[in-house]
């Protein structure tokens, strides 16, 4: 064990993970999720929350254990964040009741006024006939509508979560599309390395399934339409993959300066060794055909961790199940890991939980750390028709017990946002 002032290869504080929490369509909490994930259970189901008339896609990975009655995305995302955060902080044992000794970085979906509220205000403004925004605006000051503002402010969930856990300073709410959860972790790592804080709470939470969000992704042709049976729709790296499955969930990590964790006798669950990032300027929704940005992203993460491709023995894939992503990710990992790629298992948690969007990077970081802890790799389920263009060991259909000492977890998002994280079990 290293002494006080432990430093990484670049002379920076070592960043440990001392607590984790997770919520997905498989359930609430690490143990339930891990059991189902490694049993190859799918959380994808037919949507029961709203009518599905006219919808091309009728399935999702809904967080049904959390959703009750009608919850707008702000409320559901907040509850998911609180559940994941509670689990992480409780495991970490850090701070005291209502006080977390560090800042909050929280990845969240963007918010807006939801249709039920718009309709409610319109009914007051113009009971019959044409109702336009000027009419809605005219009556918006009526006190009964004030609570709607708590569902639309971009900073509101971060505010609640910061207040609940008593984190320090101004909470940072962020989005980098499907890389958001990883960005939240990365911001926390950077703050600890700068010496600004000894601990940080990083959360990604997404409860944004609504008719309109489903339509939006559907119109971009991003979603699987193989609705029946729902649990077989998400099939990353398969030849017959046809899009991702929208999902809800959240992941939370207590990240901490290793010295600080040791000093208080905390159990270290893993080390966040490196973060890499590279933006893509090719297209709004597609990645550069040469794969250069995602290759640079993974290489930046390796360089930040001070390790080489030969040191990685599992890839937690972004693996969305879209034709485009999986092809590009395969090309990317083949370039980064070279000939060795055929011997490195790479699996996609999304085959079981769907794409938790804003939360994905955090949820999958938690699963990567559980992979390290249990030395068991969750499978890529629904892998029955391999894609000859993707010659990867995708851990098809069945979990695998094997030695895993270092994981790279990828998150690639709309808008050319790419983040990769490197995690290990023990400090190097």
């Amino acid at each position: 064990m290293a002494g006080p002032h432990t430093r990484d290869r670049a002379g920076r504080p070592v960043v440990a993970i001392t607590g984790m929490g997770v919520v997905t369509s498989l359930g609430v909490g690490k143990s339930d999720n891990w059991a189902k994930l490694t049993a190859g259970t799918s959380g994808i189901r037919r949507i029961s929350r709203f009518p599905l008339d006219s919808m091309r896609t009728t399935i999702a990975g809904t967080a049904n254990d959390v959703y009750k009655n009608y919850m707008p995305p702000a409320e559901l995302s907040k509850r998911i964040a609180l559940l994941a955060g509670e689990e992480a902080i409780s495991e970490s044992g850090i701070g005291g009741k209502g006080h977390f000794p560090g800042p909050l970085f929280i990845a969240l979906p963007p918010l807006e006024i939801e249709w039920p509220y718009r309709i409610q205000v319109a009914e007051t403004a113009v009971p019959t006939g044409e109702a336009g925004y000027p009419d809605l605006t005219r009556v918006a000051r009526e006190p009964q509508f004030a609570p709607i503002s708590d569902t639309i402010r971009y900073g509101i969930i971060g505010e609640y979560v910061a207040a609940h856990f008593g984190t320090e300073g101004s909470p940072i709410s962020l989005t980098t599309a499907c890389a958001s959860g990883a960005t939240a972790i990365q911001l926390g790592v950077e703050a600890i390395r700068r010496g600004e804080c000894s601990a940080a709470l990083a959360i990604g939470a997404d409860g944004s399934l609504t008719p309109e969000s489903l339509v939006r992704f559907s119109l971009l042709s991003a979603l699987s339409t193989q609705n029946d049976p729902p649990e077989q729709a998400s099939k990353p790296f398969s030849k017959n993959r046809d899009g991702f499955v929208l999902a809800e969930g959240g992941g939370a990590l207590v990240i901490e300066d290793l010295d600080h964790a040791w000093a208080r006798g905390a159990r270290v669950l893993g080390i966040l060794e490196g973060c890499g990032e590279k933006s893509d300027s090719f297209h709004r929704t597609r990645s550069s055909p040469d794969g250069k940005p995602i290759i640079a992203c993974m290489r930046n993460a390796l360089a930040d961790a001070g390790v080489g491709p030969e040191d990685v023995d599992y890839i937690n894939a972004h693996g969305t199940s879209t034709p485009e992503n999986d092809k590009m990710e395969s090309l990317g990992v083949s370039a980064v890991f070279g000939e060795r790629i055929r011997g490195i298992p790479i699996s996609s948690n999304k085959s079981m939980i769907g794409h938790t969007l804003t939360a994905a990077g955090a949820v999958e970081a938690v699963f990567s750390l559980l992979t390290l802890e249990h030395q068991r790799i969750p499978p890529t389920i629904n892998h029955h028709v391999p894609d000859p263009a993707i010659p990867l060991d995708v851990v098809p259909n069945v979990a695998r017990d094997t030695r895993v000492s270092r994981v790279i977890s990828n998150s690639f998002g709309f808008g050319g946002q790419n983040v990769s994280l490197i995690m290990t079990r023990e400090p190097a």
Partner: protein
Amino acid sequence: MTARREVWITGVGLLTCLGEGLESVWSHLERGDPPPYDDKSFAPYVVHPLAPMSFDKQIPKKSDQRQMEMWQRVGVYTAGLALSDAGIAGKPELLDHTDMIVDAGGGERDIAVDTAILSGMRKVAEPAAFLNERLMSDLRPTLFLAQLPNLLAGNISLVHGVVGSSRTFMGEEGAGVDAVRVAQARIAAGQSDLTLVGGSYHGPRWDVLFSFELTSSALRGKFAPVWDRGPQGGLALATLGAFLVLESREHAQARGARPRGRISEVYSDRNLRKPGDIEVSLRRQLEVIAPQVDRDHAAIISGASGLEPATSAELTVLKEFGLPVRNAGTYIGHGVDAQFAANIGIASAVLEHGKLFAPAGSGDTGESPPALSQIVVTSVGNWRGEGLAVITRAE
């Protein structure tokens, strides 16, 4: 902790109702002419729209412009102005390691589609099914991308080739402060050499006014300076783009870039906005920076929004602190996410010209001190977002 490096502002991009670019904004502020505002188009609300303009200069491809809504066009355009001002536009060797922190609002609605749905729903037996059907057939597929907050950064990457790291913060004025704070801290600690930071906002829209009226926040009736909007006050929402290029001194000097100012301290805070909270928060932050303030040569540019009681609370504390005060929001309106970066940009112009701009309203007090060399820029957001930055003339 890593040794702190000096952080320079080497580029400013502004797009406001006063015009584009720091110099045109400055010349208006210096003259102190009444600001352009529009109290007719959205009556009874008062807003600060942009004068009609073409986006072609910074967003040459019409196909790119079509893929964006107004807030994104304003942001991408302004980011281009900042990159040009810093001398890094069109230089892939620099843009490749230019990091980006954007504070984004986003969420512009298709007002025609929403209105048709709201009205049509009333005539049908199954409104939920009607909603699905209309959304599936009427929403433009690309509208989603024009609504997503992180697609402002995405479009900046696409149009200007900024491809270092990219983060988008959300959370109104406070996120605008934190974007600058994190950008400054990363450079000071050696985690970045060069960062584009800022945001944009397009306030003169009915969907935005609707949102702000849920908290009775939009300015109605007669235009007045930020300080003088009566007991409840109000936000004169603006179209505003503001981006800064921040850079380590070493990196700037190595490429011969000149500093518009040095950004030495940035603080933000969270409070619950109980009575007295704003005052406590601002006092605490001002106490922290007080030892570094060169009181004979310093002034304050306030970010007060015009909402009450927040605006009066801020003024109370600023009066106690005792430096001359100006508020550019009276002239450029309130641009939420972009306000803090805009005020820092304006602070750099004040330092360059060595004097404050013309006062407007009762809270703009004090004469321009001689050899003005330091500006404290404050933020008090519409519901959260207390923060400040210290901008000093760079030698």
